[in-house]
């Protein structure tokens, strides 16, 4: 199901916790599984559950709780824009509208060329730097004015 490399990484996560509390490693294991597969299919979650000796639905709970886990395939770049209240007050809703217009897609949609997926995010702990956009769960971009958003899309578009 997962590569030997990924399993090695998951084992490393498991080793961080007491032997009878393997399921503490579920978040790390899901991140690793997602890194390899790009998203978390039902079978992937089932596998992680089996590997950690926990109920599949408990893995499902975790995977659905955090929106950095992808439960369906995404484009090459997943842009997550925070729309929580502080960001919203500082213009993230307008920024989101701009992104939607620029990419021609709504939330939870992927562009036809498979490059971009737009997601609505929850608080990223950077309210003072709103609006914030997270690229592929790893790269945080702050103070996202429309110009900066365009620049970001252009930059990523070249990479794709």
């Amino acid at each position, binding site marked *: 199901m997962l590569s030997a490399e990924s399993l090695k990484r998951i084992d490393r996560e498991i080793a961080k916790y007491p032997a009878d509390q393997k399921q503490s490693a579920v978040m790390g294991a899901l991140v690793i599984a997602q890194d390899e597969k790009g998203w978390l299919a039902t079978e992937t979650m089932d596998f992680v559950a089996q590997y950690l000796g926990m109920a599949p*639905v*408990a893995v499902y709970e975790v995977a659905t709780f955090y929106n950095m886990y992808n439960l369906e395939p995404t484009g090459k770049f997943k842009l997550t824009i925070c729309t929580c209240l502080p960001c919203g007050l500082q213009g993230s809703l307008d920024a989101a509208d701009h992104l939607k217009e620029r990419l021609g897609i709504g939330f939870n949609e992927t562009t036809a060329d498979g490059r971009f997926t737009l997601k609505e995010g929850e608080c990223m702990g950077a309210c003072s730097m709103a609006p914030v956009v997270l690229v592929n769960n790893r790269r945080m971009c702050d103070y996202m004015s429309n110009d900066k958003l365009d620049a970001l899309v252009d930059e990523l578009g070249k990479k794709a």
Partner: protein
Amino acid sequence: MAMLTLEIDGKSVEVPHGATVMEAANKLGVFVPHFCYHKKLSIAANCRMCLVQVEKAPKAMPACATPATDGMKVWTQSEPAVKAQKSVMEFLLINHPLDCPICDQGGECQLQDLAVGYGGSASRYAEPKRVVFHKNIGPLVSAEEMTRCIQCTRCVRFGQEVAGVMELGMINRGEHAEIVSFVGKTVDSELSGNMIDICPVGALTSKPFRYSARTWELTRRKSIAPHDSLGSNLVVQVKHDKVLRVVPLENEAVNECWISDKDRFSYEGLNSADRLTKPMIKDGAQWREIDWPQALELAGRRLGEIRNAAGGDAIGTLVSPHATLEEMSLAQKLARGLGSDNVDFRLRRADFAADSQRAGIPWLGMNIADIGALDRVLVVGSFLRKDHPLIASRLRQVTKRGVQLNILHSTDDDLLMNVTTKSIVAPSELPSALARIVKAVAEAKGAAVPQSVSAVTVDDASRAMAASLASGKAAAVLLGNFAEQHPQASVLQALGQQLSGLLAGEFGFLGEAANSVGGYVANCVPSGKGLNAGAMLGLDGTAARKAYILVGVEPGLDSNDPVRARSVLAAADFVVALTPFRSAVTDHADLLLPSAPFTETSGTFVNCEGRAQSFNAVVKSLDESRPAWKILRVLGNQLGLSGFDYDSSEAIRDELLASMSLPESLNNSLSATDIVQLGSTTQLAGLQRIADVPIYFADPLVRRAESLQKAADAKAPKLWLSAGDAQKAGVAAGQRVKVRQSGEAELEVAIDAKLPAGCARVAAGHSSTASLGAMSGELSVVKA
């Protein structure tokens, strides 16, 4: 331990350290409104309904999650408390549909009840409400209206903590949170129905009951579950003389506040089309209805004729282990009145050698509630979860506290609890494996090794198990149904007795059926030279009797060897069957007398701990069916036997229980242990059969319960083989093959990697495997 004193609503109360404000309030009898709190589940504190005012706390605190402290002052009905509770209720009702009249829970809904006290008269919320899609989570629990869910997570916690398997979970968060099973899965736990009871709203409801009645139309009557040996206390809910629903009656000493799905949903069988409603007689190949006087006259006359011609020994009486104490008592009285000692209720047993050495009535050896006081347990030969769902649940709770559970069995099904050591061996190896443990424990304890086991060699597995068992202070050795039905059951019993003696612990039987203890109490077993069930059903080659009296028995499915049972009944001149179900005996009997199931008769079941629990009929007998004790009474009168003049079932019970001291009669000891003969096991050419009796095929009533028959546990039996044996036989999973024992059956192959080598697991109690023969024996696989 020092107690804490606190004050709730001006009343002082003492509670132990660690108690919550909710528990203190309950002790005082002060009701704090709540949804997510449940005394048997962990604390979630997510409904917030139980907010109360606590002195010096700036905001209201949840009573369920606030630890009581010494000198604490709590107000549950002060203005801040009530204001907080009302605000929570307003939030809960924002997304909850306000259409109680069309909700199945209406009238018995905690949210509805509390909304009367704490809800507004109108909603201030004018925005769209959220909608949660309905789900199909199986044939028993309906999740049709998940929009009604208030996310208390009681069902999730029940699964995790009591049932031992988390089948429901809450996905997403905030406004999008919803209760689901893992993508497309059903809820298959044998305790799943309890989720319906604990759901405080109409989100999880009973699928079979849904929209068949309103709660206030139902009459509630107490009863006792007729299935497993626990004897769960029930409330049977009745409308127009029809049982529409069964729910638990709380009894901490027996079933706590739970019941198994078998006890809950088997009532559908009571209303099945297969109910026999009139006496019937076989006229050539045709069945014809006759009236009661004719039927009873015929039964009396034929039995009398056979007794006169061939003697009482020519008559055999077989009683279901699910029959009431009164039915068993009159059945044996009738048999003995006819001069026959051939009477038995242990239909699935194969080994009766212990009978001559029994010191008393075999039982659990302790009280059910005392399971909580054990620290070491060995369960031998039990399909624990399926045979004893609630005893398994009790063991699950104690293993969480560090109690060491050890298992000796022939299959390795997931018990959903912590098992310290386990030894999974072929059925023929069970006695020697247990003997090894006896020897290892003797060695570990420094005690003399009993003569009978001195020849065995202790191995690492038995040493590990002995180390676990010997390290405790309160051990118990419990034999399950598989051990009781084992061809060397008496050896297992003797070894179990030796082992518990070495451990200075308890020894007992989990018990096969609702009245397995009651059968002995009623003396429904041969007392002298009489034939036991095995002999009467031809297990040991004993010739068929000329006449049989069957009480509640479905011989083709309830006996150890259905093939032999069929042939001896076919060879008999006259078979009279008291049965609630027509199809149960039409193949075997000559005369059918419609008897009443447990809801239509008064009676008593003696559960595994020796607790005699009586119940009354909750509905009238269907059509012309009659309580079996009345039928037996009239038969006794018809035959001119004395001692059949009872006015009520209570009179039978009282006379029986007054004639003995039930608690003192309970005794698992065997007078001698020379019964232990550990011969070398002969190598079998074929595969050893391991037969479980699946939970929903175990008795005639549950076999006719429609919804249970759609459950995952009611799937048709398969031929389970280990991967190695499947390869050897050249078959693969999913393939249909012919299996040969004393007869043949066609079964689907399935692989169970945990089965011991040389074994094949084929369930009993099902029509598709009844043609194979005895529950233990040698199987061969013939490719179809």
